[in-house]
């Protein structure tokens, strides 16, 4: 198996030959090659996703069988007799969210897929700033290690939700401070990374690759990078302020006269808990679009390729995601409808929130219409991409009542919210990421993953995802709150829907088991997967059509490609093959 193609790219008149041999550390650890960095991000992120998933499986034990000793893991919880105490549950919850969003999905969707695929799809030899790219990865790594280490802090890890609302987070144990430090590193990683992506896409497109000829995946990453660049600094500022509160005794988020456990807090006061919420959600709302846009991009690529026809409404999709990116900055307070907001603000944010649903619908509709009259190949990536469509639809639709303040009065902070966003992120984004892994694995390795194991992975996953999250919507509608370690058992209004807890937990554990096929497939295929050439999917985009599998170590392409056509020239009338690569001048 070769993850690195040792052939050296043909020099383009510069007379400098890169024949020097890099040592092990420079080639595989501190690499500046976007492909290696992409794989580093991918592997690290998948590990974090697995860890975050494990935390959730523990949470689901507590929800289904509160105050009962948990098997296996219970042996480590000697202090509480094997039971998941409420304080531990809160840590699991806060860290599950943090790890999945910041250490798992974004690094995988942007850091891994973005880094690996974007330069290849635009015909570039690497990212614009390779050293910065490497620094971004290691900053992420450090942030991740810090986050994990917080479990060992006195008092445990962060336990005030992934949203870290003060005043609670201001007075929480040490783990929260470590969370803040971890976020500092993660944010730096993302901001520097987004700079890199933007300059790469703007400056390093191959000759002939105009904006409207870009693969939709690149457009998606482009908008995503703008969101990361301009939204993350607000959370950086908020994290600094919370650190000042926790370490320097300031009161940015502590109002005057706060009493905790009967004791007046000896601080200057005058702060505002709402300030944190504004700054946090200023980031966190664009962040959710960061979570979905790369998924749109991957699904678009896989659908175009497996329908053997151009995407329907490419131009509309481009305008839609650009508009979406812009709007995402002015909807954030729909997370704050219950904070005593006045009617002017409430009206403004409901309006912008309703408007922002339109571009998502445009993208989804275009993808669905793309299936019309298509010759669909039901490859494993396509299965995941197809499943994405209705799952994202459910996720998006369940967001609508949340975006309307009157309905949100009832639904805010219930399991309905959790069901909504998990539908979008889990059978939504994560399915798209799986599609991407199965799709691009042959480009990285020159081998295909096993289709059989892929099916064994897909079908149960699809089933159990719905098994977990659909009942969650029902429980939320019944008014069951989120972040309850006993799944609502102590509330009378929750009793009629409590029985779902065991069902959902079992679904979650079976979902976990279903991933085993994927993990086996990943490692098995590295050595034993069916060997393929540079373009096993007969795709049109440059990473497939113009680069070998795997691409050349330095420079990706044997020769810089020149682009002559759009990204999805499948089934061109009169062409001899059902696909015409982007850099091909004549129709065959």
């Amino acid at each position, binding site marked *: 198996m070769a993850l690195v193609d040792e052939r050296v790219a043909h020099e383009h008149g510069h007379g400098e030959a890169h024949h020097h041999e890099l040592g092990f550390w420079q080639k595989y650890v501190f690499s500046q090659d976007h492909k290696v960095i992409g794989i580093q991000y991918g592997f690290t992120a998948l590990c974090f996703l697995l860890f975050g998933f494990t935390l959730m499986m523990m949470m689901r034990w507590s929800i289904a069988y509160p105050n009962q000793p948990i098997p296996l893991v219970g042996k480590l919880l000697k202090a509480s007799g094997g039971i998941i105490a409420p304080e531990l549950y809160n840590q699991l919850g806060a860290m599950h969210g943090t790890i999945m969003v910041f250490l798992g999905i974004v690094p995988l969707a942007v850091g891994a897929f973005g880094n690996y695929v974007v330069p290849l799809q635009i015909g570039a030899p690497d990212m614009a700033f390779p050293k910065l790219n490497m620094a971004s990865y290691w900053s992420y790594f450090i942030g991740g290690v810090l986050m994990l280490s917080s479990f060992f802090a006195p008092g445990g890890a962060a336990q005030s939700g992934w949203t870290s609302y003060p005043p609670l987070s201001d007075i929480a144990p040490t783990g929260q401070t470590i969370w803040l430090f971890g976020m500092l590193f993660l944010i730096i990683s993302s901001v520097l990374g987004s700079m890199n992506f933007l300059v790469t896409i703007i400056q390093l497109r191959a000759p002939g690759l105009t904006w409207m000829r870009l693969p939709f995946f690149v457009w998606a990453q482009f908008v995503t990078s703008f969101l990361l660049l301009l939204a993350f600094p607000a959370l950086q500022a908020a994290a600094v302020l919370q650190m000042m509160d926790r370490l320097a005794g300031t009161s940015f988020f502590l109002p005057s006269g706060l009493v905790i456990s009967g004791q007046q807090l000896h601080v200057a006061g005058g702060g505002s808990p*709402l300030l944190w919420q504004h700054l946090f959600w200023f980031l966190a709302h664009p962040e959710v679009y960061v979570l979905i846009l790369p998924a749109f991009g991957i699904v678009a690529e896989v659908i175009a390729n497996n329908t053997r026809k151009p995407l329907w409404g490419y131009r509309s999709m481009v305008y839609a995601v650009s508009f979406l990116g812009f709007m995402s900055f002015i909807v954030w307070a729909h997370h704050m409808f219950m904070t005593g907001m006045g*009617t002017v603000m409430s009206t403004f944010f409901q309006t912008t929130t309703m408007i922002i649903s339109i571009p998502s619908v445009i993208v989804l509709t275009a993808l669905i219409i793309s299936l019309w009259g298509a010759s669909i190949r039901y490859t494993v990536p396509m299965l995941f991409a197809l499943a994405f469509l209705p799952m994202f639809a459910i996720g998006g639709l369940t967001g609508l009542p949340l975006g309307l303040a009157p309905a949100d009065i009832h639904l805010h902070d219930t399991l309905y919210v959790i069901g909504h966003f998990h539908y979008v992120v889990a059978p939504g984004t994560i399915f798209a990421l799986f599609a991407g892994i199965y799709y691009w694995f042959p480009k990285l390795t020159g081998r295909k993953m096993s289709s059989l194991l892929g099916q064994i992975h897909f079908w149960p996953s699809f089933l159990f995802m719905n098994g977990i999250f659909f009942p969650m919507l029902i429980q939320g509608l019944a008014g069951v709150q989120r972040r309850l370690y006993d799944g609502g058992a102590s509330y009378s209004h929750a009793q009629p829907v409590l029985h779902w807890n065991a069902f959902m937990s079992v679904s979650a554990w079976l979902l976990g088991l279903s991933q085993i096929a994927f993990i086996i497939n990943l490692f098995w295929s590295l050595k034993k997967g069916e060997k393929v050439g540079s373009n096993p999917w007969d795709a049109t985009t440059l990473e497939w059509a113009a680069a070998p599998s795997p691409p050349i170590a330095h420079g990706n392409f044997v020769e810089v490609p020149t682009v002559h056509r759009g990204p999805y020239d499948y089934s061109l009338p009169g062409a001899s093959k059902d696909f015409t690569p982007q850099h091909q001048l004549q129709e065959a």
Partner: protein
Amino acid sequence: MSESDAESIRKQTRSYITVFVTLMVMTVLTVLVSYAHMPVGLAILVALVIASFKGSLVASVFMHLSHERKVIYWVLLLTVIFFIALMAIPSISQWDQRMLR
């Protein structure tokens, strides 16, 4: 993109000195004005206007923004819009909330 021939650089140098003097004058002005008694709202407005003027001089002359390319302008335009949203909305929200009581 600024021209690189020697004559235009020398011309630019002259403008750097001019801007420097202007900035010094404006700095002194803003300090002096702050000692004058005026309502808070007006004081804030005056201070921000002077600061914006100084800032735009630094941006357009020292940072060559006046010669810069469209791609930079677009980035900055987007940034300005979101910056305004970030600045304005939390405070408007606070005002709006107060109006309820």
